[in-house]
């Protein structure tokens, strides 16, 4: 008697179910908790300092919405989202290879690409469940400072939440491919996220279109601080793509890199070092 192998979707969901628990309760999660808890702790400190009226009178005191935009831009878009993408995205396949457990998945009667898709979905849910509540808490703590109104700025929160999910999806897919394709994917990911992207964005020309951050900043131009020297420089040398162009480009990056990653996993022979 023979049984039919599970479908691609059923296989991906089974891998998702298995991987979500592994991701949430791994040692990496402590790092993740610190990463997303940092902005919340910072927001609490700012709120307390504001309530106690600490700080020099000469210190610039931006309003809550401006401060929130600054935190979204510098902490979440520029740091947390790429870091999560690099650390989790590259590990989706690389961890199984390093732990020599990928064989156990490959011998199952499921399509290899479904392993990657299931793990990618687990990454997306795991990171979104941590980053989105963190951003919401920061929003509630920071925006009311110095006259900011939660009601009037609520649409920007929705845009920020959506933008973070899109950013996590794009970075995760890109680094999932890096993890499936290359050796030492973490180093490559870090160089890309914190070397290539910030560097290229500062220069005029078309190279910035080969980054994820360029399209991500097109989704939330309001979150970009517009009173620092860096932002003035950025505005001079860089154009911001429209929301439509950004969305299409990020969707393209996500789908294409995920497809390549699945294809790589399906075709590549992983030689496990003994």
């Amino acid at each position: 008697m023979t049984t039919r192998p599970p479908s691609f979707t059923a296989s991906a969901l089974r891998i998702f179910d298995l991987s979500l628990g592994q991701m949430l309760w791994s040692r990496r999660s402590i790092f993740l908790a610190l990463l997303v808890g940092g902005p919340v702790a910072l927001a609490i400190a700012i709120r307390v300092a504001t309530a106690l009226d600490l700080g020099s009178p000469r210190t610039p005191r931006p309003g809550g919405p401006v401060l929130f935009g600054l935190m979204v831009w510098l902490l979440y878009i520029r740091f947390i989202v790429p870091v999560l993408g690099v650390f989790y995205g590259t590990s989706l396949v690389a961890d199984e290879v390093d732990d020599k457990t990928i064989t156990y998945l490959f011998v199952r009667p499921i399509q290899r690409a479904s392993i990657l898709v299931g793990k990618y979905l687990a990454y997306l849910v795991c990171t979104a469940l941590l980053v989105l509540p963190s951003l919401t808490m920061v929003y509630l703590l920071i925006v009311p400072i110095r006259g900011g109104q939660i009601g009037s700025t609520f649409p920007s929160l929705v845009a920020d939440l959506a933008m973070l999910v899109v950013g996590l999806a794009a970075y995760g897919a890109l680094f999932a491919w890096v993890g499936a394709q290359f050796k030492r994917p973490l180093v490559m990911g870090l160089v890309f996220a914190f070397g290539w992207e910030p560097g290229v964005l500062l220069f005029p020309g078309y190279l910035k279109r080969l980054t994820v951050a360029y399209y991500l900043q097109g989704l939330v131009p309001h979150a970009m601080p517009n009173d620092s020297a860096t932002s003035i420089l950025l505005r001079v040398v860089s154009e911001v793509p429209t929301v439509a162009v950004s969305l299409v480009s990020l969707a393209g990056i996500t789908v294409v890199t995920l497809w390549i990653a699945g294809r790589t996993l399906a075709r590549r022979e992983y030689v496990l070092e003994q």
Partner: protein
Amino acid sequence: MTRKTRNFVIASLVVLCAGVGTGLVAYFGLSTSAFTAAGGPDELRFLPSNATLVAFADVHQVMTSELRQKLRTAMPFTGDGQRSFEAETGINIETDIDRVVFGLTPSVDAGDRDGSSALVLARGRFDAVRIESFLRDKGATTEQYKGRTVFTPPTRSSPAAPPDATTVPPSAPPESHSTPSALVFLEPGLVGVGSPALVRRAIDLRDGGDSVMASEPIMSRVRDLENGNVWAVGRFDALTARASLGQGMMGQLPAITWFSASGQVDSGVRAVLKAETRDDESATGLRDLIRGFMALARMQAGSRPEFQSLFESVQLGGAGQTVTLNIDLTPQTLELLTGAMGRLPGPRPGR
């Protein structure tokens, strides 16, 4: 999925939904005071953090209140102040304004009298084109400041500027002894009128900044008063400086630090006046002073029922460093009072 993982997912979703739900509730205009430290009307964000007195009036509610209609019938008033404001700005208080926020700060313009600068923020329905044209016709000078046109009507003591004059630099010292008021449309439906420096500061604060909403001493008191349709909070020295009380009178008053007043004007008036003193002893002294004053007034009023009713509606209270005076003027009491005023000797106004 293990139970631990499921619990985590649920907890995370609860936090996310609570946050987004709060934002959604606030977006549709409902109160989210549990999360907001601010409180008070939105216009407060245009007042600088060093404001020493803030006041609010829901002009529309007060103007359409039953009490005002009765008072207008009983005692038609001349409305000189209202007409003067309209003549200066082209804004009709009765029809154009919904609510007003008033702020007082230590003097920021060299020509300010009383050592303080004032700013009035009026929200309502303004025909900006008509008002701007009216101001230009009156000889107001205009100045562009951060994308907003600031109008400065000519003062009565100084000759009117030609209608096409443009600009007084922000740093230029005022030439006349009394600083002219400036007017600006801060937002659609929001006009700021007051000291030119404060008007410019209000424009600065449009995008956030160190507004009075960051001043916890003021905002904590504002939050306590929000249920009234008129209220005021301020440092007592700001009030006395404005009222120009003599040194002798000031010496007689106990050491009051803050005062606040809140009132609900509808068919009657319910008001709470609160004074905070430097110490318990000063508060006791102030309570004794008010008690003595009330006893004297009762004696003066004799057996006249309208005044007896008035005194019954006033209650002295408070504890520690706080002295409160609760006033509840019912429509019946007000009718008795207006009737008594009508019987006062001399020609009745409006007849």
